């Protein structure tokens, strides 16, 4: 045994030595209080991304993959920046005008800007980027949103004219987070292979790509030529498979920010040591009902399930109470949001039980989303509805299966989340309640007309009124039961980062700095 204990001792001392070394290399974080510190240039920041943002397959703005909006914002900059309350702010574009008939949108571009490869950022580049995105052969997911674009033109270097097929009041807010907002260098795009361009694209944003391993790691360096230079010298995105290890990485000081954690239980731990910063919500959870066929075509059944649903209870148990209760399909803080809808059916178990008895029992199947959180919500719903006497089974079909089931009408209830920045956007009302849409369980001509006219109404007041009617109609008909907002949170180190708690939709990394090292 002596021999072995000596070996063990050796191993331990080697480990200790390694640890000391690691401590030396890591010890950079200065200890400052959480009071707002003056921002200084320099330093580096590591952001750990999990979940959907963690699958960063390519950086090509038009690529049909997860948008990774804040990464692409950092590389390409933005034409227009979307504020916390969905207000459109100038960035690489200085402003825009919409013609009175709503068919022509004219951008004015910032002058004197160049791409990081030195080629000029001008109207021709924007037109090239738009044409590329709108070419169906390129398969840009932005296509459906921007199908209204008839043509683009670049009359001079700083003017872009976009002609629409029909008036689209949602057009400008919908640009954000899509290829319409990210302009790559057309010269670089033409010169590089699709794979190379996806790995090391050239943009005019605050950062340039140093290295990119798809789905693993993205290292960015400051672009000194950017009109409003960033504070950080280097910005690293590290993708990680599990939320637990993402949290561990910030706990061990390897990372300063964690993005995209959806495992809410971890927030309890995180809150003790770090700032948990909500990013503005763009969607809401809902129970969508198949109102066309099956047991849920009975309005009483739909009401029963809505009465049986204790949204706040689920919010408390699963989401640590972080989400806001929703009464309609627009997330809090977005245009046309209503905190309450008159006549909204809240939790009332007695009424639910009575209704179930009245209709002679109810047996339904819930389609859940395949995410961990989605499954938990569905589990909680199933248990609540069981209490009201409903017989519930759970299924977790893949996305394609789910759409096939909806198309075939062989479903009862779907637990999902809906919403886009503008309710006329791609995951808005039309997609979930329009007749014949891929996610819709409703066939209601009146509702269709309301949704359509709301989407094309240019007058904001009238539009607001129309969306109010839409929300009311969905509530009165119990086409769906809304639960609460769907939000993501960033976990931010209290000592290592300044201004990472901006109330924004996507983190603007150019505005973030780390405290000066001593």
């Amino acid at each position, binding site marked *: 045994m002596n021999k072995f204990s000596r070996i063990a001792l050796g191993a331990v001392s080697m480990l200790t030595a390694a640890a000391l070394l690691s401590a030396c290399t890591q010890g950079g974080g200065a200890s400052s209080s959480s009071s707002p510190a003056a921002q200084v240039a320099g330093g580096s920041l590591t952001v750990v991304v999990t979940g959907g943002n963690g699958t960063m397959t390519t950086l090509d703005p038009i690529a049909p993959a997860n948008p990774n909006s804040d990464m692409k914002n950092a590389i390409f900059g933005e034409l227009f920046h979307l504020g916390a309350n969905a207000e459109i702010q100038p960035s690489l574009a200085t402003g825009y005008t919409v013609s009175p008939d709503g068919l022509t949108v004219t951008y004015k571009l910032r002058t004197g800007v160049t791409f990081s490869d030195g080629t000029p950022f001008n109207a021709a580049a924007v037109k090239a980027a738009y044409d590329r995105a709108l070419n169906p052969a390129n398969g840009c997911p932005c296509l459906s949103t921007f199908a209204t674009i008839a043509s683009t033109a670049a009359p001079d270097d700083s003017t872009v004219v976009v002609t629409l097929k029909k008036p689209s009041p949602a057009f400008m807010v919908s640009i954000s987070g899509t290829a319409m907002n990210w302009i790559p260098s057309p010269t670089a795009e033409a010169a590089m292979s699709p794979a190379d361009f996806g790995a090391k694209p050239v943009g005019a944003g605050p950062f340039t790509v140093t290295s990119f391993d798809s789905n693993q790691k993205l290292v960015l360096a400051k672009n000194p030529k950017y009109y409003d230079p960033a504070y950080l010298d280097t910005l690293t995105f590290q993708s990680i498979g599990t*939320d*637990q290890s993402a949290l561990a990485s910030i706990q061990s000081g390897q990372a300063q920010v964690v993005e995209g954690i959806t*495992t809410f*239980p*971890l927030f*309890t*731990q995180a809150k003790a040591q770090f700032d948990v910063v909500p990013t503005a919500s763009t969607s809401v959870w809902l129970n969508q009902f198949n109102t066309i066929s099956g047991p849920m075509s009975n309005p009483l059944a739909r009401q029963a399930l809505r009465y049986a649903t*204790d949204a706040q*209870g*689920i919010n*408390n*148990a*699963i989401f640590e109470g972080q989400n806001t209760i929703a009464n309609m399909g627009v997330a809090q803080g977005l245009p046309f949001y209503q905190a309450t809808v008159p006549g909204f059916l809240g939790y009332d178990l007695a009424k639910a039980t009575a209704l179930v008895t009245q209709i002679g029992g109810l047996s339904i199947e819930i389609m859940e989303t*395949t995410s*961990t959180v989605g*499954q*938990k919500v*569905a*589990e*909680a719903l*199933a*248990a*609540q509805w*069981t209490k009201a006497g409903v017989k519930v089974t*759970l*299924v*977790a*079909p*893949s996305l394609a*299966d789910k759409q096939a089931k909806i198309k075939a009408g062989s479903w009862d209830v779907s637990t999902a989340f809906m919403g886009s920045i503008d309710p006329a956007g791609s995951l808005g009302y039309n997609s979930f309640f329009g007749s014949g849409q891929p996610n819709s369980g409703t066939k209601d001509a009146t509702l269709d007309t309301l949704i359509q006219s709301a989407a094309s109404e240019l007058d904001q007041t009238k539009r607001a009124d129309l969306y109010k009617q839409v929300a009311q109609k969905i509530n009165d008909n119990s086409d769906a039961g809304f639960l609460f907002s769907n939000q993501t949170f960033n976990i931010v180190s209290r000592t290592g980062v300044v201004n990472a708690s901006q109330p924004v939709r996507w983190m603007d990394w150019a505005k973030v700095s780390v405290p000066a090292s001593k």
Partner: protein
Amino acid sequence: MTAVPELVLAPTATRRPSAFGTWLRLNRDLWIPGVLLALVILACFLGPLVLHVTDPLAQDLESVNLPLFSPSYPLGTDDLGRDTLSRLLYGGRTSIEIALAANVLGLFFGGVIGIISGYRGGLTDTLIARGIDVLVAFPSLVLLLVVASYLGPSELNVILAIGFFSIPAYARLARAATMRLRGLTYVTAAQLGGQKDTVVMTRHIFPNVLPQLLTYSILHIGIVIVIEASLSFLGVGVPPPTPSWGTMISNGQLYLTTNPLLLLVPSAALVITVLLFNTVGDAVRERWAKS
């Protein structure tokens, strides 16, 4: 060689009452873990009926994450306010069902394939052996993930997927054992005695291969329960809300720092069960190796 059989000429001798005591003393390594294991299995399969535990799916969102020894929840509750004890027992049933069923599948198909391969030899053997090679070399995770996402997660599909991947090990074992038996003269004697190949395989080879396969399966059961947990972690295990030890562990790891009980309780159950299966398996293997 001749001395030993003479001793067993009188089989009634071991039936005397005192002999049972001797048997117990000599076989402590077998019966103690065996009885404990039986208790675990009984607890999982009959416990819920006898103990009147609450419904494992019933949630009480008012009382989530209760600690040990809470009133009416002896093992506390989970993140959705479900009774951990009840879920542990029902979950054990699911996990043990999966482990047994997957093993039976693997043992049966692997055994049949291995015996045919080892017995027939020649081209059949070469083809089957290469087929097994493919299965062994194939990253099983790929197929598990693909199959699970194709079939959709369900207990049956987990059984099918794990059972399918248990086939190569059983097939290799059975093949090796068959090739050894095929060389033994009683097989030649049966063949020359006019016995059909199918009869030789089912009545001579199979009963003699079975003990080895069974010993392996006892040891393999623990591994299957752990694989089930890993599948849950990857999101293709037993779908919620059905409890299983795997899903409980996979869910519990989220609460490692906030409510470690949710991880510790099912992990302890898993460790104890695997330990018992291993101990019984070892004892059986020792006996089998001696005879």
